[in-house]
């Protein structure tokens, strides 16, 4: 506690930032309590100053009347437009013509609708029946497929659940029968990604080689989506409605938070990394061997191993490392060459073929900028590891450097 305070007058206390923060926010409660106790002569003045600070308070206005997030979407669109086009975009024109064209689909409501009951069997059937083509697609509840042309597509579902904005320049109005279980599906093959804004405001970054199934509009008590692959979630806070990410084996339940979910097929693992907020992990099968729920706090990583049914939790992980794929960066720290090739294969949609004796288990570290061409990225890898490579169409032939 600074000695200067011993000589302070009422006005001095009232204007002091530390004092104000104590009265209004309780900051430094112990220090100030001690100070008052040690300086009883100042007690009267301190309480007077405190009363004045309290008298000067204003009521905080209710923010609920204003949709903070909706406004952000407008601003973000303008931001993107402005930074994408060479010429400055007129504000007035932007507000008037937010969509370049509108496509209205008059849908016969009796077309096949994905129907989900409580158990997940239907889901897994539908997920596997979708062919692994090279196209990224949005599949509407009616079954219509819309091809997503961008390498990183952008989808926005409005709150009412009847419009979808695609890549910021087209809007689809969906007027199908209002089935509360009607689900939309986004499928991205290797080499493509998608950013999705769900109707509740949750943002999803879907990584290459993944699928997500979700309702066009969330009704019902909870918000549930199904994921196969990898996605980063920024869940819109809603204390009354839990957000559940369901994968083949595990459910991740949150209320409003940011985390990354990754299914690691080759290693039979599911990995969840928590960026902020809190999540609850619970096993997804009927015969659950895991009776308890596992809670994660920020910077923790949980790995669920499907083979031995164990969950391990690691604290203080380097979160950036796990979510750098969102920025198009691939970071790896002492990962095997094999793992790196798998990630590159997923991102660039190529196959790696090893010729000769390549040390696949050899560990390397580095950061790759996935905005670069595969050629440039492989050059970086070839610097870090004793390999040579040759790209031939969709295949990358890798050989050991010693040869």
């Amino acid at each position, binding site marked *: 506690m600074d000695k200067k305070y011993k000589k302070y007058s*009422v*006005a001095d206390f*009232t*204007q002091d*930032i530390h004092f*104000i*923060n104590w009265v*209004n*926010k309780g900051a430094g409660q112990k220090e100030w309590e001690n100070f008052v106790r040690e300086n009883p002569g100042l007690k*009267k003045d301190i*309480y*007077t100053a*405190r*009363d*004045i*600070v*309290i*008298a*000067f*308070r*204003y*009521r*905080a*206005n209710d*923010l609920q*009347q*204003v949709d*903070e997030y909706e*406004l*952000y979407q*407008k*601003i*973000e669109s*303008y*931001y*993107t437009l*402005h*930074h994408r086009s060479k010429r*400055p*975009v007129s*504000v007035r024109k*932007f507000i008037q013509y937010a969509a370049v064209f509108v496509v209205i689909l008059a849908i016969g409501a009796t077309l096949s609708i994905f129907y989900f009951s409580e158990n997940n069997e239907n889901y897994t059937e539908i997920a596997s029946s979708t062919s692994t083509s090279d196209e990224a697609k949005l599949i509407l509840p009616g079954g219509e497929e819309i091809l997503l042309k961008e390498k990183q597509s952008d989808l926005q579902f409005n709150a009412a659940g009847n419009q979808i904005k695609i890549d910021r320049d087209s809007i689809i109005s969906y007027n199908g029968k209002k089935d509360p279980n009607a689900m939309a599906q986004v499928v991205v093959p290797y080499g493509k990604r998608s950013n999705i804004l769900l109707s509740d405001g949750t943002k999803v970054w879907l990584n290459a080689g993944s699928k997500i199934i979700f309702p066009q509009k969330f009704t019902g008590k909870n918000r549930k989506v199904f994921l196969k692959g990898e996605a980063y979630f920024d869940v819109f806070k809603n204390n009354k409605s839990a957000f559940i990410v369901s994968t083949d084996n595990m459910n991740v339940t949150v209320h409003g938070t940011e985390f990354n979910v990754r299914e690691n097929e080759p290693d039979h693992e599911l990995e969840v990394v928590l960026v902020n907020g809190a999540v609850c992990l619970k096993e997804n099968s009927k015969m659950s061997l895991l009776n308890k729920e596992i809670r994660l706090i920020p910077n923790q990583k949980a790995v669920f191993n499907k083979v031995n049914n164990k969950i391990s939790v690691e604290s203080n992980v380097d979160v950036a490392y796990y979510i750098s794929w969102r920025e198009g960066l691939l970071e790896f720290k002492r990962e095997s060459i094999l793992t790196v090739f798998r990630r590159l294969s997923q991102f660039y949609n190529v196959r790696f073929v090893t010729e000769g004796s390549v040390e696949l288990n050899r560990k390397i570290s580095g950061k790759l900028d996935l905005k670069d061409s595969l050629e440039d990225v492989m050059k970086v890898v070839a610097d870090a590891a004793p390999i040579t490579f040759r790209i031939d169409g969709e295949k990358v032939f890798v050989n050991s450097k010693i040869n």
Partner: protein
Amino acid sequence: MTKDHDIWENFKAGDKSALSYVYFQHFNSMFQYGIKFKDDPEFVRDCIQDVFLKLIQAGDKLGSTENIRFYLFKALKNAIYKELDKSKKLEFVEFDTLKFEAPFAFKEELQEKDHPTDRELALSKALNELSDRQREIIYLRFECTMEYGQICDLMGLKSDSARKLLFRAITSLREIIDDRLKHPILLLIQFSRKHVL
């Protein structure tokens, strides 16, 4: 403060996460500040939208800053002034005398009381007698814990004016609060019950 500087530069350069950071970090305080001038949420929201769109439109021509909140507050105040000036055709509103309409929390609490004490009434009267300028300075200093230099800049005042005006406000209140026959704690308890930060 260099953190603000860097984020602002990133924002200018087109980094969307910087936009997101700036917006969500400051929206609430911008809203709370703006609504003190006019108790109309839609109006304040439109002004905030205006601020961001204009900032984005300025692009590279935008200056640098070490304090984003201050920059946004100034832009917001400008936007509010322009909008109010447009609609009020009869009354000429000067920028540095924008009416700070919002009442103190104490005033609202007092209205709900059936039998206010003499001291409470005296306090209410003293608060009423504060000028709009003093009330805005109080908001910026106590709620926003803003530095005097920035307060003066924001309000178009000369360097030491803010401190002097605040001192006068404090003194007038002090005379009433100090004049106590009862135990000092009593007044404290009455106020702190219904406070909302």
